[in-house]
């Protein structure tokens, strides 16, 4: 319980702090003025919410994906889900350019779902002992879909969109332009209701069937959550790598794999990581900023290397 309290208070501090970081100077003393509140209301608060929602839901999506794949080295952004979302969005922009944003999002999430199902059909045939084969196949698979997206983007003169989708950042987040992320957050939050079923998936198909789980249905519902989260994040703020990889691994080491217990921690840690990275991204070249995806990429790569080489001896 105390872990939850300290986690929440740390997250609260980061949240409050993030409201006072940005190109326009703002200190708590300014809170008497109307402009300060407008700045917070229109820009800083939406940005803080967008960061928290995407961080928490990406971390949860990564955790679910790792349980379904029974592999700790996969995450939606690198294993085809994110790339499929981009390809889907590109197709929608070409064939249904006048569709409302909601339809575009839905179709992009659907493309992400098709891409994830494809990934899981491929890795089902891989030997489970070969732990590193799954992420490698994921990277190749994601790369192929990603290059298809780039090819179409080039042909359609839409490459600048792809580069926006590829590098997640929150500088353009304002009121009225991030709200779809609440849906991603809700999808990730709803997965808590079936946390037990996802934990059982992590024990494999035979154990799941033995316990009377409708294996395909639970896997599919997990993939739906992953796809909604990934699709909406890519479209709204762009791809943020490593959150779905690093956070679930760290949380699993600390709190184990019973999702009912660990999922809230995953959400908090994911939100905290992206929030801290986003504050850093705003401060490092102040008053300019660097994309949060770049900051997370550096942190994530370092943590990932530590995970690979610093594995506990008893983990086979």
């Amino acid at each position, binding site marked *: 319980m105390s872990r939850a309290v300290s986690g929440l208070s740390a997250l609260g501090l980061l949240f409050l702090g993030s409201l006072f970081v940005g190109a326009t100077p703002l200190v708590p003393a300014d809170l008497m003025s109307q402009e300060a509140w407008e700045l917070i209301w229109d820009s800083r608060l939406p940005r803080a919410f967008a960061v928290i929602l995407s961080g928490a839901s990406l971390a949860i999506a990564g955790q679910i994906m790792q349980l379904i794949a029974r592999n700790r080295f996969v995450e939606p952004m690198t294993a085809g889900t994110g790339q499929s979302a981009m390809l889907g969005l590109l197709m929608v922009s070409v064939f249904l350019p006048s569709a409302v944003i909601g339809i575009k999002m839905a179709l992009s999430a659907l493309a992400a779902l098709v891409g994830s199902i494809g990934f899981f059909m491929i890795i089902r045939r891989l030997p489970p002992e070969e732990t590193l084969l799954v992420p490698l196949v994921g990277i190749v698979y994601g790369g192929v879909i990603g290059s298809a997206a780039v090819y179409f983007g080039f042909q359609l003169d839409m490459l600048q969109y792809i580069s926006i989708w590829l590098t997640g950042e929150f500088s353009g987040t304002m009121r009225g332009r991030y709200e779809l992320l609440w849906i991603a957050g809700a999808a990730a939050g709803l997965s808590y209701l079936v946390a037990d079923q996802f934990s059982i998936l992590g024990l494999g198909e035979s154990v799941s069937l033995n316990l009377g789980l409708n294996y395909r249905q639970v896997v599919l519902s997990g993939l739906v959550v992953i796809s909604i989260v990934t699709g909406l994040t890519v479209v709204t703020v762009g791809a943020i790598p490593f959150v779905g990889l690093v956070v679930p691994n760290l949380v699993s080491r600390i709190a184990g794999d019973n999702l009912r217990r660990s999922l809230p921690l995953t959400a908090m840690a994911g939100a905290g990581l992206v929030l801290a990275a986003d504050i850093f991204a705003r401060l490092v070249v102040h008053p300019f900023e660097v994309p949060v995806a770049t900051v997370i990429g550096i942190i994530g790569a370092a943590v990932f290397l530590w995970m690979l080489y610093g594995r506990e001896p008893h983990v*086979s």
Partner: protein
Amino acid sequence: MIEVHNLTYRIADAPILTDISLRVPLGGIVALIGPNGAGKSTLLSLMARLLPLQQGRITVDELTVGQSDDRELARRLAILPQTMHATSRLTVRDLVSFGRYPYHRGRPTKEDRSLVEEGLGLFELSAMADRSLDTLSGGQRQRAFVAMTYVQDTNYVLLDEPLNNLDLAASRSLMVRLRELADAKGRTIIIVLHDINVATAYADRVLVMKDGRLCGDGAPRDVVTPELIKDVFETDATLRVVDGRPVVLA
């Protein structure tokens, strides 16, 4: 009673099981023996709906495998598959608790909890109940999985080579416990065994399989004969009778 009618299973035209029919009434230990590749695991997996049926019919009491509700079947029959790649960082107690999942679907009652504690105690896991599965030895992990199938509280328990990772003491203690479950609780245990001597020591009935067919069925002392060793296992190990039961000298 588990009834298997004319079960045939192929993988890409290669026959794995050919026309198997058998009945297993409630209660007792049934050992399934036979050389490698005889189809023992496939038979168990089909009974437990881990593989889809191709030809034939299997019923568990009044439930038909492949048609009945999965939850219903999960309260009637439990299986422990052969290979358990447990990379999961669940605690032993969490794992054993999942055995009650078919009953409570995520909301364990007091009764579920006390059954879990009973299972932990019975399989001597209480002391390591809060340890993570990936910190256990192969034998301890195996015991935790057996405890999970125990608290699943099913009439039928199918175990696929559960002694694989276990040393002599652990093997014996598992078999003794299974014997108690069969005798005191009237459970039916169908167990794939490699060691014929374990089968003759603990089973009430031995089923022999070879090349996807059933080729022997009966009490251990009637089934385990020099002919079995020679014809089914194709080796010439000596068979002696020790204390009234056949023992294979490997």
